[in-house]
């Protein structure tokens, strides 16, 4: 296990980068706590794989340093960093049995036979492959193979971190849940630092202790799933997390009053004056449909029934608004207004979250 530190790290695939856009990964300074499970979440092309490959050593960063437990490993090879990596598709040695696959890394390091037997037995138990230990790896299902990939990484006790690069991509949907659960259990059991790259927010939010949300090479926010949900630091994080994501309205701000359309909304905080773009963010869960004409007027587009609740898709002056209505509440014809829970309102200036002064 190790603490991983990224210091002034950035990466560009071009020779002499000049603008921020030239960077696949923009400057990042971060310390990954030993033993935590992290998710790198973001859309395709956001730089999460680049970051993962830098951590694993497949890629050397064009700028900055990476340290494992205070030791500079920026130029160290993958093998020397003592990490394990599980790839998007299962990487197993087809001609070997499951057991031989798991033994392989230890054999190459010259471990003793007894030690190998012990480790393999223990890992096989953890990943539940005991019943197929003597089967050839070639004919197994994709999820079994991914587990073997994982097992091969974990069989070394001194492994610093386990990195996962969208490992559930080729897994059947109903097995995804199984594997995710097993991974989480393994993490609790063995306590390795785990970094999990994905573009699926459900995977990220259920697996990780902390989620790193990225977009366009930037790390936008690092926080627990709860923090990301309640207080997204950037409008993108608001959009990306939640199903559906956060609603954003263009507003004008005066102290603690937000002017939306022609209505005034009282806020819990007061904010400084600014000429930049101001947005009010609130999650569909905290928007209520009312028939009170004093509230904000909207037009309902359609209502989607999603088992446990209803999603109401509406428009406010042409801009999309989503409202989540609990299952037992009815949506009637006259409900063409919404009210916002002011405790759950976030204000964004230039897309970034700002904290105001609390009004007592």
């Amino acid at each position, binding site marked *: 296990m190790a603490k991983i530190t990224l210091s002034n790290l950035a990466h560009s695939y071009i020779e002499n980068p000049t603008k921020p856009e030239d960077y696949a990964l923009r400057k990042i300074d971060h310390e990954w706590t030993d033993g935590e499970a992290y998710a790198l979440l973001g859309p395709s092309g956001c730089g999460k794989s680049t970051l993962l490959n830098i951590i694993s050593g*497949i890629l050397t960063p064009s700028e900055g340093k990476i340290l494992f437990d205070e030791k500079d490993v920026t130029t160290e*090879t*993958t*093998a020397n960093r003592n*990490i*394990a*990596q599980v*790839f*998007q*598709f299962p*990487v197993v*040695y*087809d*001609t*070997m049995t499951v057991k031989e696959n798991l033994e*392989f*890394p230890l054999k*190459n*390091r010259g471990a003793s036979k007894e030690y190998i037997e012990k480790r393999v037995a223990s890992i096989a138990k953890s990943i539940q492959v005991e019943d197929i230990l003597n089967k*050839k790896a*070639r*004919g197994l299902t994709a999820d079994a193979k991914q587990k073997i*990939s994982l097992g*091969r*990484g974990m069989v070394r006790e001194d492994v610093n971190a386990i990195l996962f690069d969208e490992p559930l991509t080729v897994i059947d949907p109903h097995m995804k849940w199984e594997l995710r659960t097993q991974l989480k259990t393994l993490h609790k059991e063995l306590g390795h630092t785990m970094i999990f790259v994905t573009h699926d927010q459900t995977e990220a939010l259920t697996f990780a202790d902390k989620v790193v949300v990225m977009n366009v090479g930037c790390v936008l926010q690092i926080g627990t799933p709860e923090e990301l949900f309640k207080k997204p630091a950037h409008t993108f994080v608001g959009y990306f997390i939640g199903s559906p994501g956060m609603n954003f309205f263009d507003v004008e701000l005066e102290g603690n009053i937000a002017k939306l359309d022609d209505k005034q909304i009282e806020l819990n905080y007061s904010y400084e004056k600014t000429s930049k773009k101001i947005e009010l963010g609130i999650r569909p869960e905290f928007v209520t449909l009312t028939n009170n004409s004093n509230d904000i007027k909207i037009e309902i587009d359609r209502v989607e029934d999603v088992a446990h609740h209803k999603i109401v898709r509406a428009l406010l002056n042409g801009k999309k608004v989503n409202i989540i209505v609990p299952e037992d509440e009815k949506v009637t014809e006259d409900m063409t207004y919404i009210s916002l829970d002011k405790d759950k309102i976030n204000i964004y200036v230039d897309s970034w979250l700002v904290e105001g002064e609390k009004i007592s």
Partner: protein
Amino acid sequence: MRKTVNQKAWFLVLPVILLVAFSAVIPLMTVVNYSVQDTFGNNVFFEVGLEWFEEILHSERIHAALGRQALFTTIILLIEIPLGIFIALNMPKKGFWASASLILVALPLLVPWNVVGTIWQIFGRSDIGLLGHTLANLGIEYNYSQDVLSAWITIIVMDVWHWTSLVVLLCYAGLQSIPSAYYQAAKIDQASRWNVFRYIELPKMMGVLLIAFLLRFMDSFMIYTEPMVVTGGGPGNATTFLSIDLVKMAIGQFDLGPAAAFSLIYFLVILLVSWAFFTIITNIDKQEN
């Protein structure tokens, strides 16, 4: 990979079947016809036909040609397959030299077979050929038209020169299609170079290796032009392989009957060996699953 059962897959295969059947089935029937007929037009079926087959099967001359052929094919397979793999492993994968190597390696394959024979015929002559001249200067006894060993070595080296690149190209393409993740995983597992070859590269190349092997087997069994041009089957009949003998018979005796019978038997030998291989491989596949 688990294949799904889908009878509609026949539609995807249909164009191929139609095209090949059009070419194969119709003509083949004509050939079968020939081999049981007397060429001069007496449509006396069967009795005459079986006679030809009998004659072929018992002919000593045919047995000798078959023996020579088997020896030749075995030798070149033993050289070309490992050599091809070895070269493919050493070919550069990126950059200018990758393209340059590909083109240069492919050149021998593109030379028309009569030209191949012609090149080597001149190449090996001690008076005007680079090879022959050099060997003569080094004091080595070499004469492919009179010495059996020289003739064999010349033909073998010529075939290796001509066809190893086929194995190289197939293995190279096979190697290139191994995802880099496997190599990375091997690095993480600290596998040795030999282990990488044995557990990653070789298994993944099995498919193309089989193709290379069977292709070389089939084609070397049918070899005609190149040895014909260089040695004409000689000295004597030292390098008279199967097809050379077949053509000699057909032209010499001006009798298509036994020739056609010979073709069929010829075809059957190749068929048998390939079927054997095919079955072995698919059985191994089945066992693994």
